[in-house]
């Protein structure tokens, strides 16, 4: 069967159904722009920001996945702790948000290191499912501990005044939290890229990803580097938690919700591809926010309002994933044979 796939060339022209689907999508976008321009654009921005958060979580998750072969289920819990940590700092200790922005990710990163050293280290080389289950147990413990400490009801805190304002861009008003989140997200991606592709440290990590034993034969202390990477991944999760908490608040379910979404992002983008994760996170973020608007506009214009499905936005990541899996089993930019 894949003999046939081998024969097909990548620069093949898109087939008729794909062309039609693309044209239909374009038509819907135009209709939506005509009917509700402001809502469309503002949801587009909202989607991109949401995508940035997804992207940061997914990057940390995929870094650890690639390195240790473990889907770190507790990654979502670390994200959640970032948000609650910010709440503790800002609302309870009444310290500045900017302090939380620096201190909380470091604290979450250290917690991640603790987890790596006490639990995950014992599971290197084991069946990857065991690592998945162990981190899953840790995630539940963290969640329960959070419930004990901060209670089960959703919380929020007031971000500093700068972030409560909004900026006028053309006819559009964008909340500064969103701009700030987008900026931080871009910085994180850029920083990770530089670290991974422009430094010796990153080179050794990439080598360790491809052949850990050989990297150690060359004199590289891979376990130590893994711990550092774990810190970085956990800290990024904590940072995104702080940002998310500032924008929309926090609850106990956010950890699990986002770790699942981050995994969907990785699957759609293709395992092991930083670029793939970035693209798919933004794609999914936009899909979540924009689809309802487009669907509403299209059904209104066509007079088929019964076709409108409420809550379609939240379903989009999964629809995108199923679609991608059916068409490109390895994700958009996945490499063959990685982690299977």
């Amino acid at each position, binding site marked *: 069967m894949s003999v046939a796939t081998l024969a097909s060339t990548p620069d093949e022209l898109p087939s008729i159904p794909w062309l039609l689907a693309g044209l239909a999508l374009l038509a819907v976008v135009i209709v939506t722009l005509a009917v509700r321009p402001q809502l469309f654009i503002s949801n587009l921005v909202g989607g991109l920001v949401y995508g940035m958060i997804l992207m940061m979580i997914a990057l940390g998750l995929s870094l650890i996945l690639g390195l240790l072969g473990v889907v770190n289920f507790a990654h979502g819990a670390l994200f959640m702790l970032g948000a609650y940590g910010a709440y503790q700092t800002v609302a309870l200790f009444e310290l500045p948000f900017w302090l939380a922005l620096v201190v909380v990710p470091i604290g979450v990163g250290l917690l991640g290191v603790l987890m790596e050293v006490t639990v995950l280290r014992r599971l290197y*080389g084991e069946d990857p499912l065991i690592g998945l289950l162990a981190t899953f147990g840790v995630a539940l413990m963290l969640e329960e501990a959070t419930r004990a400490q901060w209670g089960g009801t959703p919380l929020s805190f007031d971000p500093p005044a700068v972030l409560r304002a909004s900026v006028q861009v053309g006819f559009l008003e964008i909340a500064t939290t969103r701009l700030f989140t987008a900026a931080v997200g871009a910085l994180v991606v850029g920083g990770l890229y530089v670290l991974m592709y422009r430094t*010796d440290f990153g*080179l*050794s990590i*990439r*080598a360790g990803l*491809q*052949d850990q*034993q*050989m*990297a*150690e*034969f*060359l*004199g*590289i*202390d*891979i376990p130590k580097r893994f711990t550092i990477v774990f810190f970085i991944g956990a800290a990024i999760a904590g940072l995104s938690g702080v940002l998310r908490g500032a924008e929309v608040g926090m609850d106990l379910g956010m950890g699990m919700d986002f770790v699942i979404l981050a995994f969907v992002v990785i699957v759609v983008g293709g395992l092991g591809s930083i670029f793939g994760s970035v693209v798919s996170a933004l794609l999914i973020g936009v899909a979540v926010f924009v689809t309802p608007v487009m669907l509403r506009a299209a059904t209104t214009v066509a007079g088929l309002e019964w076709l409108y499905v409420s809550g379609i936005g939240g379903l989009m990541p999964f629809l995108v994933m199923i679609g991608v899996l059916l068409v490109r089993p390895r994700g958009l930019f996945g490499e063959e044979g990685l982690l299977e």
Partner: protein
Amino acid sequence: MSLLEVSGLEAGYETGQILFGIDLAIEEGEAVGLLGRNGAGKTTTMRAIMGADLPRIIDGSIRYRDAELLDRKSYDRADQGISFVPEERQLFPRLTVTENVHIAASAAEDPLPAEEMFDLFPELDEMRDRHAKNMSGGEQQMLAIARALVSNPDLMLLDEPCEGLAPQIVERLEDVVTRINDERGVTVLIVEQNVATAMAVADRHYILDEGRIVEEVTTDRLREDDELRQRHLGV
């Protein structure tokens, strides 16, 4: 004092013990061959010296410059000046030639200039930005040797560096290894299925059978004694 001294080494995998007491000693500056049939335990010995996760060590000792290596991690062993060209080469497939060399240099205390490697293997110079997975077997082997050499080691372990390569490339590699040993004074321990290569590179050989050293011979004796070769090596 030998540079490397292995005594009573017993090791194995989950499926069973492979080594049943290996004793060997290598002096500084020597080039020594480790020969034997398939499954005799040659690769297992090499991996044990290098401190790989597997095999499990059951008993014995590995002393390097008179210090015990067994309780050291493999990256510590590399730091002490041991480098390894494993069977199957184990290049980093999605790193470029330059990166493969650079990573070894960056991990070493006193590396050789990468340019020297490219002088040694002009073929590699022409494909600096190529990913290792896209190279031919011979080019990969050159890169594996360059990667091991760039860290400026005192002891170099080579596990079947010539397997599956064309005769003229085998000759190139034999020549390079000989020069590394003669000109740079790097001590060499080489595992070879190809007895001719082992004889071309090394002066002295240990012959392994069923996890034990059964014979220690000079190259001359090995060349002359057909019966010996036939008995232990099947050639």
